[in-house]
Structures are given as C-alpha cells and as structure tokens.
C-alpha cells in the first residue's frame, strides 16, 4: 500500500497543470494589458516583446508538461508491480452466465439483495431490463423498509424506524435484538448534540425512553448520562467515543433494522449474496495461492475429484452454516445419501462404512469400542 500511497500522493502534489493555467493566464493578461495601452494610445505594439512573452509561455508550458509526464510514467511503472495477479485467472469454475436462466437467477438474487438494502429504484430497473416481474405482494412487503431506509440513511431521521421498532417490540425481544435501544440511543445523542447550550432536552428524552432498558443496557446509559455534564464537543468528556457520530451510525442502524425486518418477513436475516461474498473475501487468498503453485509447477494441479475443491478453506464460525460430520472410518464427509448412522454405543459412522463392516460379519462391531450390535440397534441420524 505504501507504494500506491506514494504514487497517488506524488500525483496529487504535482501542480504542473495549475502552473500551465497560470502561464496561459499571464500571457492573456499581458495581451489584454497591451490592448488597453493600444486603445488608450499610450504604447505601441512591438512584435519583439510579444514574441518574447509567447516564447516564454511556450517554454514554461513544456517544462511543466515534462514534470507531470515523469510522474505519470513512474506511477504506471510502480502500479504494475503492485497489482501482480489477475482475478479472472484465479478460479476456473464460473457461474455459467451463458445460460439465460443462470443470468436471470443471478439478477433475481441481486434484486432480493437490493430490496433488503432498501434500493427499490435499482431493483426495479434490473427487473424491467430483464423482463422479470417483481410481484406487488413482494414489493409491498418491502415498501415499509424502503421508506425507513430513505428516512434513516438519507435524511438521518429516526421517527419511522422508532415507530417500526415499537410495533415489532415483542418480535425484537424474542430474537434478542437491541435495535430499539440503539435507535433511542442515537436519537438521544442527536438531541444532545443539537442543543449544545442545554442538556435538558436530551435529559427529558432519556427519562422517558431509557428506563425500559435499565436491566439490559445500564452501562451504556450511564455513560450517555454522564456525558451530559459536558457540552457535546468538550474533549474532557471521558465517554466521547460513545457519543461519536462520525462512523456512519445511521447506515449501521439501518443494516441492523433490515436484518431484523427480513427475518420477520420470513427471509434469512442476512442477504445470501452478502454472506457468500464475505466468505469469498476470506477464501480468495487460498485460491490465489493454489493458482500460483499450480503455475509454478507449470501443470494444472490435480483436482482429485472434479466436483470438489482440492484444498481446504477455513471459515469463521459465523460463516459455517452446517454441521459437518467426517466419518472417522472412511474420512469422508457424510451426505444425505451416505448419512451418519448411530450405533447402540452412540458412536457415529457413515452408512457406507457401515455397509463395509456388515459384509465381513453378521453382527457389527463398533470400530471404537468393544461392543457389537445387531442391525436393529443401528439408527440413521441427522444433525439439526
């Protein structure tokens, strides 16, 4: 990043073109001054003088040009070294966009994503261009979200969002969302900052709205209330960052609201597109590495199974959505066809491994403990 930063800053600092404008302006002023003198008959036009001025302008302009040219060339050279891999080479499997159906499915997923982030306009434009109809029923469901989005993110008005949270109070409590408190908190800070001379309006607001959250958010409430001793921007305030409004709190609140909204409508709280791309950003270094090694060996590294990645990608807990069971005997991941089986001793192995054990013996001995079982003591199980 340092290289990029250096180059961008060098380019930004280079004022050669401003100087070119100045030179041009100087020449123009000189000519106008001459015109004035001619009109007032105070001076004669000497070609020699004009020539000197014009030549000066031309030379200076060329000089400035050169300085910028060097900067541009250097930038290009350095930047090519930094950006040393090509995204399009990283992964050879691709969603087959040649198929119209796939393209439309991608677009549909994007429309759903856009509805979630409250952007009806773009969603509708895609639908129109693709000739797919977004049913009114669906739009109506999201209509409220769109209005809240506009209010919250564009106008920084909290009323609609607070009203919505009030209506859905019980649902929010059920899923353990602290959206309501966060909305009131932001409103409080807003009032407090808008009335720097007196903390009373904010205090009044707090008195009405904060008591309900006393058992869950007392710590934050205390910080907020002690902030009112200071005027909003006083650096002595030890809790200055709890009333900080610089890191786009409205956008963040909208994101939280949208997640809650979607789960009440019956969708997953997070947009599948978002989750998938989040995983992608974590996984892609692995893909780049694999690609590099494969290139170095000058042969395509083998995919042991055409339908499975040849390397592991470790994802954080929040991006693991299924329980994975690797059969301890065959070391294979269980599937709906090759499901896990629970033996009477409560050890699990895969159906395929079980079948192999069965072949050899009439009764089955657990590979992990000394117990043996009859077939009716074995049950197919499913992780929920």
């Amino acid at each position, binding site marked *: *990043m340092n290289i990029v930063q250096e180059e961008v800053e060098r380019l930004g600092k280079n004022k050669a073109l401003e100087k*070119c*404008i100045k030179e041009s302006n100087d*020449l123009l002023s000189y*000519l106008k001054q001459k*015109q004035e003198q*001619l009109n007032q008959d105070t001076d004669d036009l000497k*070609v020699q003088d*004009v020539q000197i001025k*014009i030549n000066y302008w*031309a030379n200076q302009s060329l000089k400035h*040009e050169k300085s910028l040219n060097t900067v*541009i060339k250097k930038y*290009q050279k350095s*930047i090519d070294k930094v*950006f040393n891999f090509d*995204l399009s080479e990283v*992964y050879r*499997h691709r*969603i087959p*966009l040649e198929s119209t159906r796939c393209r*439309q499915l*991608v677009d*549909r997923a994007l429309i*759903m*994503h*856009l509805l979630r*982030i409250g*952007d009806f*306009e*773009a*969603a509708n*434009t895609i639908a*129109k*261009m693709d000739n797919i*109809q977004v049913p009114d029923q669906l739009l109506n469901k999201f209509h409220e979200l769109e209005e809240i989005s506009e209010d919250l993110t564009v106008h920084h008005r909290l009323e609609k969002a607070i009203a919505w949270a009030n209506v859905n109070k019980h649902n929010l409590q059920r899923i353990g969302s602290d959206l309501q408190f966060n909305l009131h908190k932001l409103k409080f800070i807003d009032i407090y900052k808008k009335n720097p001379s007196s903390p009373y309006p904010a205090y009044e607001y707090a008195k009405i709205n904060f008591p309900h959250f006393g058992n869950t958010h007392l710590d934050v409430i205390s910080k907020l209330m002690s902030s009112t001793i200071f005027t909003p921007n006083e650096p002595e305030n030890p809790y200055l960052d709890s009333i900080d409004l610089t890191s786009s709190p409205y956008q*963040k609140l909208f994101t939280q609201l949208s997640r809650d909204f979607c789960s009440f*409508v*019956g969708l997953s709280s*997070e947009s599948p*597109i*978002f*989750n*998938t*791309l*989040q*995983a992608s*950003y*974590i*996984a892609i270094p692995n893909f780049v590495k694999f690609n590099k090694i494969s290139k170095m060996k000058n042969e395509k590294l083998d995919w042991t199974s055409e339908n*499975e990645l040849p390397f592991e*990608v470790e994802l*954080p*807990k929040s*991006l693991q959505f299924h329980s994975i069971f690797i059969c301890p005997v065959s070391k294979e991941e269980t599937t709906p066809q090759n499901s896990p089986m*629970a033996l009477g001793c*409560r050890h699990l192995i895969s159906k395929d491994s079980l079948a192999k054990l069965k072949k050899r013996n009439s009764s089955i001995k657990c590979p992990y403990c000394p117990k043996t079982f009859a077939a009716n003591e074995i*049950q*197919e199980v499913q992780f*929920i």
Partner: protein
Amino acid sequence: MSYVSDVEFYLKLQKTQFKTPIEAVKRNFKAIQKLIEKQSALLSRHLIQLKELELNGQLSKEIQRERIAVLINIQTRFHDKLVTRVEEHNDYVQRLEIRLQRFKDLEKILEKGKNSSSDFGDDFLAWTRDQINLLIGCYLMKNLINFNGDISQNNPGLELLKHLKLDKLIDHDVILKGISIYQKIRYEKDLSVLIDWCNENKKILKSMKTSSTSVDDSNTTQKDQYRTSLDFETFYQNFIELIKEDKIYEALIIAKEHLMPQAGPEVPSTSNSATTSSATSYSDKTPKYDSTFEKFKKSAGLLVFGSLDIDELFGLSGSKVNSSRKDSLTNSAMSVYDTFSNSYNQINNNLKPFKELLNDEKWIQLADFFIYNYNHIYGIDQSLELIVMLSVGITSLKTHSCNGFKNYSKHDFQDPQVTFQDVLHNIEESNDISNAKSELSINDLNKCPICSLELYEIAQHLPYSHQTKSNIYENPVKLPNGHIYQLEKLLKMNEAFEKPEIENLDEMYIKDPLTNEMFKRSELQKIFPT
C-alpha cells in the same frame, strides 16, 4: 478477526480502481500536450505574420489593435479548453485520493480489530458491505453490454452506487463510454464511432498487437484472435460492409489505405509472431505469414461476386417455376449427374466462408474484440468480478449437507421461467408456520446462503468445498426420531414453547421443534461423534 486478510490483499483485488484513472489521466495529458503544441504553432504563425507586417511598415495602429484582438481571442479559447482539461485531470486525481483514503480507513479498522475476539468487527462489516455493493454496481454496469437500449436511462448499477455514495470508487464514465461504443457496433452495426476510436488510439493498438502475441493463453482460438489488431479488424469489417453495399471502389480504397499496410508479409510483426514460444498449435513448417494477410486474401474473393445471393447468380430467385427447379436441384437423387446442379452446389460450398464473413455474428465478434481492447487499455478487469467472487464464495460454502431447496419446494413444480413466485411462496409459507404457532421455521434452522432460494440453483453448477474436519457443536443429543440437536439449544427452544396439556405429567417432556413430536426427557441420548 484472524480470518481477515491484510490490507495489502484487499488493495491488490482493486487493480482497476488504481489503474483506470491513471490511463485516463495519461490520455487527458496527451490531449493537453497536443493542445499546447497546436497553440504554440498557431501563435508562431501569427507572430511571423506580425513580423512581416512590421518589416513592411504596414503595422498601423488600426492593424495593431485588430491583431491584438485576434491574439486575445485565440488565447482565450485555448485557455478555456485548457481549464476544462485540467478540471478533468483533477477529477481523476481526486478519485485516486478518495480510493486511497478508503484503504487507509481499512488499515485503521483492521489495526483496531486486531485483538478482537469476534469474527468481524462492526466497522469492518460496514466496509465489506460497501465493497460488496461496489462489486454489484460494477457488475450491473458491465452487464449493460447485453442490453440493447439507452443506457443513460437504464443504469441500475450507477443508480445503486450513487444512492450509496460509492460512485467515486468506480470510473463509470470510462466504463460507460466503452459500452456505448460496444452497443453501436453490436446493435446498430455502426462502424463510424469505432473507426474514430481506432484512429485516436492507433499507437496503443499497434503496440498491443505485438505485445499480445506473447500473452500466454491456453485457448488457441483466443490467441488467434489476439494476433490481429483491432485496427485491422475494424477496417476489415468496413471493407466487407462496403462490398455488401456494392461500393467496390470505396472498398478498394479502404483496403489499400488501411488493410494492406498491416497485412503484407513484410510487416515486421510477422517475425514477432514467428518467435512466439508456444507456436506448437500452429503448423510449424509454413513461414509465419501474418494471419491478417491470409484473412485479407480470403475476403478479396468477395470482390468477384457483387452479391452472395447464389440463387440470383443462377437466375433462380423470384418466380415460382424457378423455386420448384431449385427444389429438384437440391433434393433429387439425380442431381449428382446434373452438371448444372453440380456447379450450383459446388459454388454454394465455395461461398460458405464468404457467407460467414457477411454473417451478423461477425458484428458480435468485432464488438467483443473491441471491448477486450478497450478494457485492456484502461486496465478494466476483463471478467465480471462479481461472478468470479460469487463462484469462489459459493464453492467455499457449499457442503454436502446443502440441500435446502428440497425443503422449500414442497410443491413439486419448477417454473421454467425465472420468477419471484417461489420466493413469495417461501415467505408466505414461513409466515403460515409462525401463525400456526409452530416454533421453528426452516429459516430459523437453516441460514446457509447456499441453501437459500436465491442461490441454491446457481450453486448446483459449482464444485463443493473440501472438508477434512468434523465440525459439530458441543453436547450433541439424539432424539428417538434420529434428529440430533445441541442440548442447550434444544432446551432453550423448549423453554419458549407452550406445553399445556402435559404439564400435569410427572416427567419432563421434550418437543422436537421441527416435527412437533414429544419425547420423554429420559429418551434423550448423548452422542459421541468421534
């Protein structure tokens, strides 16, 4: 946030953000150079005239005033143009600064979250959200090449990015200009814009021709394509179109001025293509003539036939009598012995390559070739980044347990058309469940994006991830029906349930939230997966 890459890696993914503006700056700078050069020349011409007048003693006050007014006029016009150009320059530089700032922000966010125990911090999530929406906006914009219509009215990508105030992060003006030229070629079959563009970029296109031969690409047909230059292809198409319109003379002029100078075997670039290391795909014995020459030779045959309507050539088009004669020509078994029919068929065969030349497909190829060149010059990624990233993400998430769609489609029909009906159906179904007081909906259980209605079908086209470790929650317990839950989660869900009819029973009952079956607490079995 141990899973998150460092800022360098995020930066490297954004090549286009830092490359496109500098290319635009360079172009703009070249234009400024030209502007100054021209102005310089113009002013010196005026100076020479002035000197002559002065020398001849014709520089009266009147003429002096007149002349100075002319000079001021010239310089003012120049100045205005210069100011516009400089504004453009500053705009691009500003974009670079904004983009750099975004990565500086990210660096701070990552630094702050270094020791955080959560997977992702709030600020990092917000940053990622912007990044992802930027990807989407860029995809929507690039995808406009498949749209035949006014892109200034229909541009969801730009709408989205403006709405999110991310539009400075993408060089939409550059991308859209390329698309508008693409559209002109592909949909309007209009070469004039392309010809202008080629003339503006002659130098770079020529250098691309030589450098692109060294591009190591396993796809031979593509390589073949890159061996020619956009410049040549454009005038080649121009040439063919003129023949089509029967403007043979104009066609020959184009050929002489634009095609032959590039096509002859004496052109130095031939030696270049001969040294291509990976020449194995071409026959090695024949000298490496530039393929463009072959191409030109091939099409020159077109000149002989004013029209490619073979029926017209044989006097077969038009009247009904003739069309029946034509049928008998092509169908009857005797036709093999019919000399007339023989030559008809033979010429028809010989004309095939010519027909391909006149095919509409050619326009799409040319348009594609143009956009490849355009993107290359401006450092715009040739692929759709969103699709690459989505493919990577889907594969990384896809497990053998991802079969969520089965749960959704209880009604067993799949609409051949992509609609929102199943989305709606899904939403209503889960609402029904919650109305019926069932405690769990499918969505509560399965938040996997691959199992989601949106991505499930798309994911079927991509490979699975590779899993080597079991990943199962602690305290797994089995119900008699084979469902395994995490003990605490199951108990917590049971807390919320209403179980009025069994409260008077002695033993505690547990309900399977998925099936609503009731089991005795003692029937729960701890499971040992390893």
